[in-house]
């Protein structure tokens, strides 16, 4: 036995406590934090104003329009809530994937497959009792979305294929499929643009407020956000997801089956995205067309990033982006701001919120 004449103290106890205390001290002061965030928010506003000026309008008016059209009155607020619904879905779908470092950029496509599934059930599976049809639609939507995400998921888990490229490629494929269905076999001859036949009554989501588009999808979305939160933080799978996402090597060393965790997560992620698509069809559009999602899947990515992949925080962040989206819809009408511009704005907002964190670290 190694004898040491002095009693062994735990590894430099004094120095460790000092370590933590001065680590705290070296943390950016509250003052510094406030300053940096103000600067970055200011920058975001500046950017927005520049864009508006470049289009030839008054930034103050644009700003006012942005907020008044999104939350300025009750009906408008409700409409913003309608947009919040898909954003919660996609935000959660992306968040759980990102938690395990599965870069699921294919949420947009998985969303559409859910929509396709629900549309199919809504149009063609009509000889079953309505409640069954309804359930079948949503279950199938979850499955289809999940399966579509399983492609990059399984490829990543078993063959180590880069899921970013695969999931984005699959998006493009999905868009073409939707295009085909909406202008081909499922095309509604009474419509001008490519869109399908309407789905039957039984697969619609009931409206909560008459005269608006507000449907119960919002509560389904919130429900799933909480569900995913519980899975992530209380279940065995959630524990495995967190460990694999934090340190895959460590996970392997503890006997966690990484491939299985990735596969299950991808199915969950895609499934939620599929539900989003189903919700949009069943609650808002009632038929399949290319325009049911102006890029909710991509906004979902930004939402997840800003919510730090926390399913519950996704909800307020989604609402914030719904304001942005709904406000910019109005701006499109009033000052002819192009549809794509809102993406630039979203990206800048995201950057402005994320950069301070890194700047403060230095």
């Amino acid at each position, binding site marked *: 036995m190694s004898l040491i004449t002095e009693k062994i103290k735990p590894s430099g106890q004094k120095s460790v406590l000092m370590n933590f205390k001065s680590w705290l001290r070296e943390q950016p002061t509250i003052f510094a934090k406030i300053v940096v965030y103000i600067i970055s928010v200011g920058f975001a506003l500046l950017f927005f104003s520049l*864009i508006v000026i470049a289009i030839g309008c008054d930034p103050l008016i644009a700003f006012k329009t942005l907020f008044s059209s999104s939350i300025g009155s009750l009906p408008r607020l409700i409409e913003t809530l309608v947009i919040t619904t898909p954003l919660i879905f996609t935000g959660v779908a992306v968040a759980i994937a990102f938690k395990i470092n599965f870069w699921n950029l294919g949420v947009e496509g998985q969303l559409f497959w859910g929509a396709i599934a629900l549309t199919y059930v809504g149009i063609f599976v009509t000889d079953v009792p309505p409640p069954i049809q309804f359930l079948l639609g949503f279950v199938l939507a979850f499955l289809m979305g999940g399966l579509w995400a399983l492609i990059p998921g399984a490829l990543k888990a078993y063959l180590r294929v*880069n899921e970013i490229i695969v999931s984005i490629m699959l998006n493009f494929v999905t868009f073409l*499929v939707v295009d085909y269905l909406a202008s081909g076999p499922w095309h509604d001859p009474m419509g001008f643009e490519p869109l399908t036949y309407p789905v039957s009554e039984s697969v619609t989501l009931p409206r909560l407020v008459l005269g608006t588009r507000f449907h119960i999808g919002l509560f389904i979305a919130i429900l799933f956000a909480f569900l995913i939160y519980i899975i992530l933080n209380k279940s065995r799978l959630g524990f495995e997801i967190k460990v694999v996402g934090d340190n895959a090597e460590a996970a392997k060393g503890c006997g966690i089956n990484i491939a299985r965790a990735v596969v299950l997560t991808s199915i969950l992620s895609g499934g939620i995205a599929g539900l989003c698509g189903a919700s949009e069809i069943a609650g808002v559009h009632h038929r399949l067309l290319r325009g049911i999602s102006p890029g909710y899947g991509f906004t979902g990515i930004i939402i997840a990033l800003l919510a730090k992949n926390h399913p519950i925080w996704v909800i307020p962040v989604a609402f914030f982006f719904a304001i942005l989206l709904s406000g910019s819809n109005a701006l499109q009408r009033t000052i002819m*701001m192009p549809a794509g*511009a809102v993406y630039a704005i979203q*990206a800048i907002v995201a950057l402005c919120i994320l950069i301070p964190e890194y700047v403060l*670290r230095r």
Partner: protein
Amino acid sequence: MGDYWIEFIAVLLEMAFRLGVLYIVAAMGEVVTQRSGIFNISIEGIMTLGAITSYAAVVSTGSHLIGFVAAVVTGALIGVLLGILMITLGMDQTLTGMLMWIFGIGMGALLYRVFFGVRAVPIMIDTMDKIKIPVLSSIPIIGPSFFDQNLFVYLAYLLIMPLTYFVLFKTTHGLKIRAVGENPRAADVLGINVGLTRYLTLIFAAIMQSVAGAYLLMAETAVFTPGMIGGRGWITLQLVMFGRWNPPLILGGAVLFSFIEALAYKVQLLYRMIPYQFLLMMPYIATIVTLVLISRGAVMPRMLGVPYKREKSE
């Protein structure tokens, strides 16, 4: 009947060589920066920005050269911005790339609106002229398909790719770049500025990718549409892997994929009963298939995607 097939192949090759330039230019930029350890996934966004700025430049000045200059400037600015985010601030490269991609696509639409207002009929620009090379263009098949192209095609195949290969593997600078990607600590310890090296490769990549977008505009589409890149930025990413980070192989991959694109297009014209959507899917599906096939045994630069920080010792 044999003549028909030969002509068919020649036409396809001609398209393939032409379209391939986009991939080659963008991929040469990307391979250099990936070799230095930066995994830049914002290619699609950078291409879009290059396209819109060159479009604006050409419409206002009528000169293709100015268009390219505009693209170079755009690329340089983006490269610096990306460098600040990824290198100086140490943000996650995948994240940053995603944001720049979304930003680029959005800005493309926005700048179009800013420069051109709302138009029913977009302005078309002249595409680049073809230059026919006297003797060589008479060689059967290869002749008309390769030696009767616009200037940039010649530049890309005969200058840009070989130059990239040469610099990467035969010069001291290339050695530095590769070392930084394989073991940045080894380079740091010898006094090589890892951050600066990565900045430079990133700026080079952004310039190349911006120019690639400009090329697509000036040689092919002649107008700007927000979705004009159509996923080719992502395919470029795959091509770099497919070519095992080796310029000549990447060139081969680029021609192959352009060939598939050309084939899909031609088949669509010929066989109208096949819904065109399924043919348009071909390049995307091909990309996935290639990725699956090459994912075994791909040896990438070891420190790809990992930001470098001098670690504290003891």
